């Protein structure tokens, strides 16, 4: 077992309000881990603590065996992170943006060039590679954003609602890419979404967070069994309503 993501008793307080309370889970290499919960449950805060954007009030996070608190640079080098609050530099085109972030991660020049070429091809960015990012459609921007998270070839990828606002074609493309990253490239993924059909399709295991607390940790079938529901939607609703 090769644990690449560890959240250990993560808690986060904002003043008197405890947004995340004692969340713990581990994710293995090649696993797609789904993080579910209603709006305001604490998913994004948890993911931000994993990425180092926020300091946990209690607990710790490790990425690829590196402590985010103590070995921050090594942890960040191993992580690609994307949330809905991240946008692209409007006055750069996708190629310039990927090169810029590749440089930020100190990727060697030759390797960076090959990697950027690969990502442009893999994500179908070629038709708009010279266009400024501000001129791209929502789907095109999301492809470039995800390519940006992978430019330094991280072992761990965290995607917070990557298909929100996308059409079916773009969503499908991204879901297939996520599966490929995990199963063929053995990357470890945390995938947060409100779309339970995507969860059922992709996720090896899931965690359900509600009001900052972990409600469930396990696989999809286990949740259905525990809540005695036939569909994931019903199971999720039942679990959240009960608590």
């Amino acid at each position, binding site marked *: 077992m090769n644990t690449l993501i560890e959240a250990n008793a993560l808690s986060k307080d904002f003043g008197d309000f405890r947004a995340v309370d004692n969340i713990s889970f581990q994710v293995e290499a090649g696993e797609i881990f789904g993080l579910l919960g209603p709006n305001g449950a604490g998913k994004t805060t948890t993911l*931000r603590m994993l*990425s*180092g*954007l*926020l*300091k946990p009030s209690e607990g710790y996070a490790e990425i690829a065996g590196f402590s985010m608190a103590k070995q921050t*640079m090594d942890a*960040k*080098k191993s*992580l690609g*992170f994307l*949330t809905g*609050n*991240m*946008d*692209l*530099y*409007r006055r750069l085109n996708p190629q310039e943006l990927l090169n810029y*972030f590749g440089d*930020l*991660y*100190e990727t060697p020049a030759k390797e960076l060039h090959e990697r950027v070429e690969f990502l442009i091809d893999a994500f179908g960015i070629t038709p708009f590679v010279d266009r400024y990012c501000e001129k791209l459609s929502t789907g095109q921007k999301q492809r470039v954003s995800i390519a*940006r998270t992978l430019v330094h070839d991280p072992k761990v990828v965290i995607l917070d609602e990557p298909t929100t606002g996308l059409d079916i074609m773009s969503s499908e493309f991204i879901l297939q890419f996520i599966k490929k990253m995990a199963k063929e490239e053995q990357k470890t993924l945390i995938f947060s979404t409100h779309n339970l059909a995507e969860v059922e399709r992709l996720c090896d295991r899931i965690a359900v967070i509600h009001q900052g607390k972990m409600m469930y940790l396990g696989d999809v079938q286990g949740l259905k069994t525990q809540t005695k529901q036939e569909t994931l939607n019903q199971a999720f609703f039942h679990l959240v309503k009960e608590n």
Partner: protein
Amino acid sequence: MIYLIILMPFFLYPIMLSVMGNIQVSQQEKMSAQKIALWMSPQSEGSPVFQLLSKDSSLNIELRDFEAEDLKGTEKTMGIIVAATYQQQLDAGLSTPVQLLWDQSQDILSFRSRSIKAQLDILNKQYTFDRLAQKELTPEFIQPFVVQSVDLSPQEGGNHLLTSMIPIMIFFFIVLGCFQIAIDITAGEKERNTLQTLYTSTATTKEIIGGKFFALVSVGLTSATMNLTSLLVAMRLQAYILGKADAGTMALSLSPIAIIWVIVLVFLATLFIGAFIMAIVLLANTYKEAQSYNAPVMMVILMPAMMAFMPGLELNMDTVFIPMLNTTLALISLLKGSFDLTMLLIVTVANILYGGLALYLASFTFSNENVITGEKVKLKDLFSK
């Protein structure tokens, strides 16, 4: 934006001032050539005043009886009333009144009145010297004391007004250059949701702040240099066009040591101004909010500097620790060609400390989680645990 702050002013000032200068010269030439009507009292015919002004081809002299009221409402018309007894008064060695009447609200009349007065002054001097000669006296008889002013200020330096204005102009252009950039790279990035992405990369907070600060200072310094150079060149150009190419007016000569000190002080002032602006605009949550800080920030930075215009204020132990004022006074003394090395050293150290403090405040704000995640920044949260 860079083009607007740096390149455009560089070309704009010379063009603007040379156009203005050319217009001014052309207007003056027009006003000089334009004929105006000059009413003179009938008794002035044959008088020295009449004979003098008759030679001026731009005056249409008309001998007529008139009162001051008659001139009101007329256009391009002046009046001269010479006393009927002028000849008797002149022969008796007395003064004779010459009344010059004109509407000061008409620019052309004010302009031409100066020329007429100058001609009458020359006539006055001629008569005065003739009278003295009749008494076998020299012109020195009526001027017992000839006062001469000798300027003992150093050869270096420049004219007082110029040396006082230049530091203020430098700081103004630094603020101008820094402010827009500061907004774009802080509040602007927060608004555009690109700041978080930087923080998830392997760039450290110090590197992010350092990079942004370096960009800010570079633009501020470049803006100040380009704008000031352009303005000085434009002012010389305008002086040349206006025919006032008096080297003393626009000249500024400095020793190599003074130049080095000027560069050091301007650089340190830019660091302080840049850090201060960055610390303030970081508190803004949107581009628009940050822009509203422009006026107060400019006042806070420029008002201490403008205190340097107060008479009697100089760089001493009372003023050397006041930010911006100390640098302004130091620059003025350097530009005038005289400076106190001890004071300059104190100003330098003080500015380094102030700049460092401002940068520390900026980095402190930058590290705040609300800034990182693009949430609303509250002042009280900056200092709470």
